[in-house]
């Protein structure tokens, strides 16, 4: 009768003690925490970006661009293959040319179409296309077929598309590469501990706590930063080009910040790209004193640029960043050393940013901002203070209410259980690395209100049992035994909804789900085990004749 197993008492003591130890660092200032002996935990609870201030950015990798680039490369290679030209560096006899209609090939949407003039050549053409295909590398690293889907359609038309597997694999690779590049870029700026994670198939989430200038972060992350060196096409006059007479193989690109030459006609083919850079640093143009970026090519880049500049002395080339011309200087003499400088209308800051971008490398595909949430650190601090104040008010109101309603003993037991409950929630969140957000604080406060429910259920049941004529001890015992079933049933539904919230919720809402679900579990512990131990020990000490409620 009213026997409390020793293991229960032990469990309550141990869990409460562990809770205190894990929750304690949250109450200590940093200096004290650093001085703690290493066997004690010194982690504090993670604060969400809405509480500590910071930026949340979600990007989508525009994988269409990667698909298109691959198809363009295939189209280029294909016209060469069909004409029987050799690839650079390819040995052996040249192949017989196959006649096809049109001057060149380029993808229309997601398909490359080529019409073979002579029906008899179709199988040979198909064979040459198949030779261009690359294997798709699956997740496990094994090859799962070719990346090109080739179909013969009536009228001797061959249609080339990317297979679905190829698209999936290309997207995956583009996302991983992008994450790498973003990490390098952000690391260079010294932003503290950014979290860069993949989300879903083609998304990347960047969370930078304390970053108060999200625009800078966005410029740094969102820019493709594909640098190319291309010859300027001087075969037609700028006026003719502006009127739309653009020779094949060239393209008209804008040149921002140069009112007297807003557009430059450049050859499509890049002489060298940013991939061949080994160094990029901000500096100053020695002649004009304007900010600039100095760079150094690697071996292959130096050779390619040296050869091109030797062949084109007197002509102009363009330095192009993400399809915008930075500058288009004339080649005065062959540039053989492999180093140079980019001028343009830079400020010191933008030169600095460009150098950072070039050092970190280009993104494989452009990134599009899907979602951005920024909270200033002051607003975050205000939210913490408001949340803490609301918590204190809630706690005081409930303490007063419980004492008034159930008296010092039973009210006190409920309050003690509640206090330990709060400690346990904070300890659990700290230990598992859960994130506390502003809605999370609301969840915590809501838990304060709901956690006493279990105590209330138990107490009410005891009152009924006593009223039904049982002795005090029997009433307490039966009260517990019967109420526990109800408490469990009632809490399972709360836990279910909290888990769903956790699964579907994003960011701050997930923080709410954290506190709510942890709160349900800890309140079961404090209400059932702890209250029972406390009530039983009170009973054995006082041996009351009647319940004080």
């Amino acid at each position, binding site marked *: 009768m009213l026997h409390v197993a020793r293991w229960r008492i032990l469990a309550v003591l141990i869990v409460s003690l562990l809770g205190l130890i894990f929750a304690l660092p949250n109450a200590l200032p940093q200096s004290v925490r650093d001085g703690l002996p290493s066997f004690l935990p010194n982690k504090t609870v993670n604060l969400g970006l809405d509480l500590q201030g910071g930026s949340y950015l*979600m990007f*989508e990798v525009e994988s269409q661009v990667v698909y298109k680039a691959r198809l363009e490369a295939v189209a280029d290679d294909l016209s060469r293959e069909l004409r029987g030209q050799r690839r650079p560096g390819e040995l052996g006899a040249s192949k017989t040319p196959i006649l096809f209609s049109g001057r060149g090939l380029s993808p229309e949407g997601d398909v490359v179409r080529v019409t073979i003039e002579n029906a008899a050549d179709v199988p040979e053409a198909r064979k040459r296309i198949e030779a261009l295909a690359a294997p798709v590398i699956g997740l496990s690293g094994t090859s799962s077929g070719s990346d090109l889907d080739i179909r013969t359609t009536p009228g001797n038309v061959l249609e080339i598309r990317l297979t679905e597997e190829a698209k999936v694999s290309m997207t995956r690779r583009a996302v991983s590469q992008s994450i790498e590049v973003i990490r390098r870029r952000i690391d260079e700026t010294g932003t503290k501990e950014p979290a860069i994670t993949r989300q879903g198939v083609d998304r990347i989430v960047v969370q930078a706590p304390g970053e108060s200038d*999200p*625009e800078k972060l966005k410029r740094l992350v*969102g820019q493709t930063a594909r640098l190319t060196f291309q010859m300027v096409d001087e075969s037609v006059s700028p006026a003719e080009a502006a009127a739309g007479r653009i020779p094949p193989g060239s393209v008209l690109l804008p040149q921002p910040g140069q009112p007297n030459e807003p557009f430059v006609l450049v050859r499509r083919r890049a002489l060298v790209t940013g991939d061949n850079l080994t160094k990029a640093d901000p500096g100053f143009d020695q002649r004009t004193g304007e900010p600039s970026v100095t760079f150094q090519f690697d071996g292959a880049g130096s050779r390619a640029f040296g050869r091109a500049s030797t062949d084109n002395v007197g002509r102009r080339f363009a330095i192009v960043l993400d399809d915008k011309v930075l500058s288009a200087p004339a080649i005065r003499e062959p540039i053989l050393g492999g180093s140079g400088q980019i001028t343009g209308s830079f400020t010191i800051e933008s030169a600095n940013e460009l150098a950072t971008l070039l050092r970190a490398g280009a993104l494989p595909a452009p990134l*599009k*901002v*899907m*979602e*951005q*949430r*920024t909270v*200033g650190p002051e*607003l975050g601090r205000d*939210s913490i203070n*408001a*949340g803490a104040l609301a918590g*204190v*008010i809630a706690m005081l*109101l*409930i303490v007063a*209410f419980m*004492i*008034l*309603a*159930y*008296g010092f003993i*039973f*009210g006190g037991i409920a309050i003690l259980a509640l206090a330990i409950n709060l400690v346990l929630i904070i300890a659990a969140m700290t230990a598992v690395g859960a994130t506390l957000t502003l*809605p999370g*604080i*609301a969840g915590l*406060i809501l838990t304060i*209100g*709901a956690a*006493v*429910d279990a105590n*209330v*259920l138990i107490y*009410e049941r005891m*009152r*009924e049992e006593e009223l039904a004529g049982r002795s005090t001890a029997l009433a307490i015992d039966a009260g517990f035994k019967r109420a526990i*079933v109800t408490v469990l*049933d*009632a*809490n*399972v*539904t*709360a836990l*279910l*909804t*909290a888990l*769903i*919230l956790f699964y*579907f*919720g*994003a960011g701050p809402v997930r923080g*709410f*789900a954290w506190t709510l679900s942890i709160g349900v579990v800890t309140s079961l512990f404090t209400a059932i085990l702890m209250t029972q131990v406390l009530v039983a020990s009170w009973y054995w000490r006082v041996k009351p004749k009647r319940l*004080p409620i």
Partner: protein
Amino acid sequence: MKWPFIKIIPKNTKFGFVRFSIPAAIVSVVLCIASLVSCFTLGLNFGIDFKGGTVVEAVWNKPINLAEVRERVGNMNLRDVGVQDFQEPNQAMIRFLPPEGADASATVDAVKAELRSIMPGVTFPRVEVVGPKVSEELGVNGALALGIAIILVVIYIWTRFELQMGFGSIVALAHDIILTLGFMSVTQLDFSLTTIAALLTIIGYSMNDTVVVFDRMRENMRKYKKMNFGEIIDLSTNETLSRTIITALTTFLALLGLTVVGGETMQVFTIIMLFGVFIGTYSSIYVAAPVLMLWPPKRGGEAAAAKAAVDARP
């Protein structure tokens, strides 16, 4: 004056809840219809989480002329511009949709520059941009979360209790959610991600209450095999009444502090929660239980059920 006050609450109340179940049902049905009508006519005030768009909060170091902000930002070729005052005279909240096809982040930069040019000395404590694709997904996920929550809770109640009780709880949940949505539509409170969280919490709270009553009904059905079902409901509701009131009060007290000092972001959440606590308590007594009178659960096999039916006759 007796203290502890719990002694004031009579231990065995005998309110005839069931007697009022028909007027209560009428009130509930009318309110549900009104809520639905309001949702379809007034509509819900969806925030950028579900509509997409941009919100910029601006704080100047001096009071700002909102009319000027409204005019200057209004002339910026943005869509759906809204400028609201926000707590203090030196704050403003600007909402807009970027022009069709424009880059959302570049638009934010432009708006910030414009605000700076209206009056310098401005900071932006909060900027949120939600793209159309994301807002659509958030909407779908929110609806899914609510749907799955209801289904799971009902399945749980069905397995732990009876099919009929699962049915009673789903009616109660639908009632709570419809009324809360109606409340949001009438008050035009901002419907955001946090609202979904609030709705789910209301589901949890309302079910918590319903489970406590059902639990007692199950017990009483075993204990009083001959009692008719209406009496079982009355007895069980009365027996759990003091608990229902106290828990509603403590939850209410806890939320009260948050409503007063929790700041604008949390206020909407707590207001909905307070409403939900009230509705959830009401629906456990007057929706979930009376529905069982229309379709009573079986009591201890066919024979007992038949006997109960006989007993139930006047």
